[in-house]
């Protein structure tokens, strides 16, 4: 498992309930008195919604002020998101949410005034340096002062983070993509202030997969960036189909993202990760890492097993993918190019649109798919929508169809032609023959004349005449119905064997004159 790997890789992940132990960790030398104080506050009597909302908003503003000067207060909706997150957390992660609820505006105020004081001190110091510049100072002293300032700044930043720690979930949701600063914060806080991350991420995770097991809790200790990837990963696992359409609603400016285009071979390759030693291929990086353990102890170290995280220092450009098939709407050269969001989207899109449909549904034998997951989804519902009206509407239940027919004048149920070939209409002697034939319907037509002039010929034709390939698909419905009405056609084949002296044309005229009579 991927998550297992990351668990081992993180030296600070000593216990899965690490986040709940955040209180204990506040004794970390780098944490500030205010922070510890925050946890000593009396607990909230009860989770009063309105109170909470107000509080959250207030704290959010305070958080924003020091970190991003001049940035506008985020819209209220953010708070609501956060609020929803909190709600989700309640059942499974109550200990963590309690830790969060201990948080009090007065503590924040305390912290902020402390920060202000510190900033003032620093300001004075810098002023001093500026003034001394003109006088001329020995370089040793200057460097010493610079170091002093750096240390102070660092401590200020750190305290700022720990103050803002509890607000991180909302901050992440709204700002992580746009603000490189926050990404840095995340990076910074990792080793130094575990309590902050713990709280922050624990609120994200439950939202994505409420009720997931311990392994997920371990993931919470991953860095925020990883966490984002995990989210993506989870999405993929849950609903691969949505991906294709998901980015349709998104309107990214043409230049705002980086376009990647994989080659056809790359897309269709069964494996994307290969062992450098034995060459074995894997679909997932984590599986490869697991595999590597067998090649020696050097691959068993936490570092080797850790998830290779991407460099998040620089503001990364959003990646979008293009389909290598020329002329495709998903191809970057297309006029109305619509990019694909992830590699998985590319794979599914390419298979669905530009590849043969090699997976056939074993139940209906008609539906074909190129993506296995699509077949699985279809098989779940295959045969359910088998009630079809002449107007093309399908129903999963017979009584619904009959209700529909009773309601509308002239509508009749369409006959599932497939059923008839199973030998309902055949004498029992023919049964075995019929069954064997079902596999390759197309061949039977050719073999008819050799069968002589028996009744079964007629039956065979009957079974095959309107053999529909995709009968239930509403698209093909009209076409099939046309064949069904054209009853003279199958007869020609048959007539040749038993009534060779009758010209096919004469049949047709007979049939047509008959129908003329009717009108």
């Amino acid at each position, binding site marked *: 498992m991927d998550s297992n790997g990351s668990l081992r890789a993180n030296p600070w992940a000593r216990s899965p309930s690490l986040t709940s132990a955040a209180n204990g960790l506040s004794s970390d030398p780098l944490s500030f008195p205010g922070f510890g104080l925050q946890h000593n506050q009396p607990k909230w009597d009860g989770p009063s919604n309105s109170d909470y909302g107000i509080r959250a908003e207030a704290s959010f503003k305070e958080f924003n002020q020091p970190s991003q000067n001049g940035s506008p207060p985020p819209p209220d909706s953010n708070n609501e998101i956060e609020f929803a997150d909190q709600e989700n957390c309640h059942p499974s992660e109550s200990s963590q949410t309690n830790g969060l609820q201990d948080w009090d505006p007065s503590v924040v105020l305390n912290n902020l005034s402390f920060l202000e004081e510190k900033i003032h001190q620093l300001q004075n110091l810098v002023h001093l340096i500026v003034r001394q510049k003109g006088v001329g100072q020995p370089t040793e002293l200057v460097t010493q002062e610079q170091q002093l300032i750096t240390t102070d700044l660092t401590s200020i930043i750190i305290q700022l983070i720990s103050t803002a720690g509890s607000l991180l979930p909302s901050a992440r949701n709204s700002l992580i993509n746009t603000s490189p600063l926050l990404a840095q914060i995340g990076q910074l806080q990792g080793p130094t202030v575990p309590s902050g991350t713990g709280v922050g991420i624990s609120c994200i995770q439950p939202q994505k997969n409420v009720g997931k097991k311990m392994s997920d809790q371990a993931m919470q200790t991953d860095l925020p960036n990883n966490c984002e990837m995990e989210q993506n990963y989870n999405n993929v696992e849950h609903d691969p189909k949505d991906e294709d359409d998901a980015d349709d609603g998104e309107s990214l400016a043409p230049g705002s993202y980086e376009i990647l285009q994989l080659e056809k071979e790359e897309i269709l390759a069964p494996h994307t990760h290969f062992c450098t030693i034995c060459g074995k291929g894997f679909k997932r990086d984590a599986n490869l890492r697991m595999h590597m353990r067998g090649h020696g102890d050097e691959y068993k170290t936490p570092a080797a097993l850790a998830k290779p995280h991407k460099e998040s220092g620089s503001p990364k450009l959003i990646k979008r993918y293009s389909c290598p098939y020329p002329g495709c709407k998903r191809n970057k050269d297309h006029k109305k190019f619509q990019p694909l969001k992830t590699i998985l989207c590319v794979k599914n899109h390419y298979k669905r649109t530009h590849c043969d449909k090699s997976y056939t549904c074993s139940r209906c034998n008609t539906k074909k798919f190129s993506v296995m997951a699509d077949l699985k989804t279809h098989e779940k519902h295959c045969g359910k929508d088998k009630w079809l009206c002449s107007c093309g509407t399908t129903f999963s239940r017979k009584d619904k169809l009959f209700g529909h027919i009773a309601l509308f004048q002239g509508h009749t149920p369409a*006959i*599932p032609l497939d059923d008839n070939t199973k030998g309902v209409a055949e004498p029992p002697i023919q049964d075995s023959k019929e069954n064997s034939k079902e596999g390759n319907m197309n061949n039977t037509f050719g073999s008819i004349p050799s069968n002589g002039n028996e009744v079964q010929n007629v039956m065979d034709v*009957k079974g095959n005449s309107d053999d529909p390939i995709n009968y239930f698909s509403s698209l093909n419905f009209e076409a099939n119905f046309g064949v069904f009405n054209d*009853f003279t056609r199958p007869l020609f084949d048959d007539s040749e064997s038993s009534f060779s002296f009758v010209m096919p044309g004469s049949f047709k005229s*007979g049939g047509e004159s*008959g129908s003329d009579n009717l009108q």
Partner: protein
Amino acid sequence: MLSESRLCLLTEDLLIRILHSLGSERKPWRLVCKDFLRLESATRKTLRVLRFEFLLPLLRKFCNIDTLDLSLCPRIHDAAVALLLAQGSPGWTRGLRRLVLSRATGLGHAGLEMLVRACPVLEAVDVSHCWGYGDREAAALSCAARLRELNMDKCLGVTDIGLAKIAVGCGQLEKLSLKWCLEISDLGIDLLCKKCLDLKYLDVSYLKVTNESLRSIASLLKLEVFVMVGCSLVDDVGLRFLEKGCPLLKAIDVSRCDCVSSSGLISVISGHEGLQQLDARYCLSELSAPLVKCLEKLKQMRIIRIDGVRVSDFILHTIGTNCKSLVELGLSKCVGVTNMGIMQLVSGCGNLKILDLTCCRFITNATISIIANCCPDLVCLKLESCDMMTENCLYQLGLNCLLLEELDLTDCSGVDDLALRYLSKCSELIRLKLGLCTNITDIGLAHIACNCPKMTELDLYRCVRIGDDGLAALTSGCKKLTKLNLSYCNRISDRGMDYISHLGELSDLELRGLSNITSIGIRAVAVSCKRLADLDLKHCEKIDDSGFGALAFFSQNLRQVSYTLVLLSLNQVILILSLMRSKSHSSAAFESKLQHLLYKNYKCYLNEHN
């Protein structure tokens, strides 16, 4: 020449009248007289062909038919229909109103649809016992928008979908029989009742329908006859729906509905006092007092069949005193039928025409004499296993019931030659069953033969004292016999077969266990009885290959032969099989039977040669 000139004097109208009054004698007339042939071709309305090969020329000749019966051509198939439509006289289908395709199992949906579409005024179709028919055939039938009558008995593949097709396509349906269409459920019936509001006759026998169907059916305002034999999922709750609905209901059949009790019938009856027919065979164990009370209201009741019910004298008395217009009463296998009860019954119901007293063992001569006295119109009397009666009762019967057409005396050991002599006064007799009446001899049979020329069905099963002389008399007197059972009349020999060969109309012959007849006798029958369709030769041990060869060669219309335990060589069986097949006439059932026999005989053959 002289006769022809005289016929020329008559107008066509008069000739047509003569033609109609000729009845079944028309054939010789049209064979010798061109005028009659012409008139026959022009006026003939019904065509029932025995063999498909003749259909095409016949259709050219008779182009004004309105009824076509193909029930004897089970192997007619789609291509044949296409041929008929293409090569038959133009427009023979224009006037066709009634199409009988019963047992035409070879016809597929495509052919059926062609046929139906070609007949613009088609009103009635019978596809009963086309057991392979399914929804697509039903869809083909639904093309006949003017259809009023449809019989789909035993179309095993028809589901709710097919029924829905018909219900939507044929909105004018008045008569529909869905007996044994086992796939049809409540949904289909419900839709039918919503779409076909003109239904007058509906048969849902043996369907797996529940009370919900009855709720739908109750909404049919024009329904007159409702048959639901063997609907074991319907109970009194369902029948209660009918109490309020179907205001015109005249006949209901709830036979073999296990869950129906007296209270359900009471609700039906109380809602429909104009009820004329009530069938409740084998569904009640006894009639409750309230139900009997209800029966008093049914003054217009004409037919009651309550087979298998425990009755009492009081019940029969109630029926007799209230249902004055009763025409038919079925008391078959009823417990508690006594002389007194029957006397009270018939004293009130003088119009009785059909009385079924099968297995009412306590009936004696006195009762039958009273029946004979009170019911002069009696047409059908069934006295099977009423073994307490003797020849005297038949004397009364022969004296009073001169209209009697059908009499069942199976297993009445009291019947002897004298009884038959009395009975022979009933000169209208058409069907007579004398099975197991071991006392009758050739003399008794001769009495019947001399006086009952209309006899068409005669059952002499195990009348062991009947011999060749009796058959001689029978075949000289009863020329119209179509069905004859001589099983186990061991005295009959090849001479008897010779006599039987004089029966030109014979179609159904049972010769089971006649150990004295040989191939020569069978050959005589095969040569002369052209209409023979069904032949039972089981345990006729002396018949060999040549007899079957003759059958295969001469009996063109043979459809079913039963001949287990007959020694046959394999070659002969194959010969029969091939000949039968070449006639393109035998039914699928027959073939499979033969195939089965082929195997059986093959084993015999191996045994013989080892």
